[in-house]
Structure formats: C-alpha cells, structure tokens
C-alpha cells in the first residue's frame, strides 16, 4: 500500500521533503478525528477501504493533479482501521510554483478523496 496504511500517520516524513528550487508554495492539509460525531462524543472512528481500487484511483488522481496544477511534489496518506480522537486520518501535502496552484491542487485531491475514493467511515465508538 502506497497511500493507505493501518499505522498511525505523522506528517514528519512529508516535512522532510526538500522543495524544488522552482517551487515557492507548499500547502498541507491534515484531517483529524473530532470528538463529536453526529452530535455524540466518540473515542475512535473506524475506516475501511476497497484497497486495490483506492490505491489505483489515488495513483491516477495524483498524476492528474501533478499535471493539471504543475505540482512538483505530492504526499498523500490515508489511515485505515480505528483512529482515536485527535489522531490524523489523512495527510495531503503539495509543492507548487505559486500559491494558487498549491491550494487548488491540495483541494482538488481532497475533494476527489471525499467524492470518489472507496474509503468509508464504518463506525464510531
């Protein structure tokens, strides 16, 4: 698995990525599990995925984002399994020449994740 993992996520690996000298903008999104889910307090959210399809779609999506927004680097990780409140569920980081492409590229990947990638919240406890 390149983009999905059952291990805890940390953005440190992404933070160590050196920026290309022609890139001037880095945008990072972290999605974190919140205490309240549908109006009730929780301890964990549980995610599952159709892993081979999610990996294949993400690979193609990231290629498309690189080309469409001129991104020089993309980092994408989504955690599966039980994720505790305050822990990271998803990291999306991009480098781009300018700020507009960096924000647009990061948001494009996030919206595509929310719409098309076969990953589901399957429970809270």
């Amino acid at each position, binding site marked *: 698995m390149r983009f999905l993992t059952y291990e805890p996520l940390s953005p440190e690996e992404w933070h160590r990525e050196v920026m290309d000298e022609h890139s001037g903008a880095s945008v990072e999104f972290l999605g974190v599990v919140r205490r309240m889910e549908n109006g009730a307090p929780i301890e964990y959210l549980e995610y599952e995925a159709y892993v081979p*399809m999610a990996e294949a779609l993400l690979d193609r999506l990231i290629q498309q984002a690189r080309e469409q927004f001129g991104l020089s680097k993309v980092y994408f990780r989504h955690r599966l399994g039980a994720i505790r409140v305050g822990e990271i569920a998803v990291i999306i980081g991009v480098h781009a020449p300018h700020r507009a492409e960096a924000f647009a590229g990061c948001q494009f990947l996030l919206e595509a994740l929310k*719409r098309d990638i076969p990953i589901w*919240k399957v429970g809270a406890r």
Partner: protein
Amino acid sequence: MVISLMVFAHLKPVLGAESCSVNLPEGATVNHLLERLLAEYPALREWLPSLRVAVNCEYAALNTVLHEGDEVALIPPVSGG
C-alpha cells in the same frame, strides 16, 4: 460465467457477506447483475440511487458487459477524509 462480487461498508449487512461468487449468463451487464441482486436482496433497493459499481477497480456504467472472472464491487457513498 462466474464473477466475484465484493461488498463494502454499510452494504455488508444488506447482502449478509463481504464477497461471493455470482453465476451470470454470457453477455450479462452490470445492470443484469444488479437486477439479480435486487431480486435476491430487496433491501438493496434503497441503496440504488447512491450506489456505484466498480468492475476490476474502475467505476463502471450500467451497460458495461461483464466477463468471466471479473471482480465487481458495490460501492456505497464514500466517506473518507
């Protein structure tokens, strides 16, 4: 021909399994498969408006023709992120 069917998330209880094999006539489409499943699992009907189907890890149209050994997945609305 036989295709393998996979079911995810909130659809698992509807079909009572995560995966199974389905026997279909040659030339059957995604739509034929859904009709067969609806006859067997009427509770699937309420999911239909939001359901997408993937064939071999690609979203597929209703008129996509299935082939022996295809891996077909029923994809309820996703909620990653």
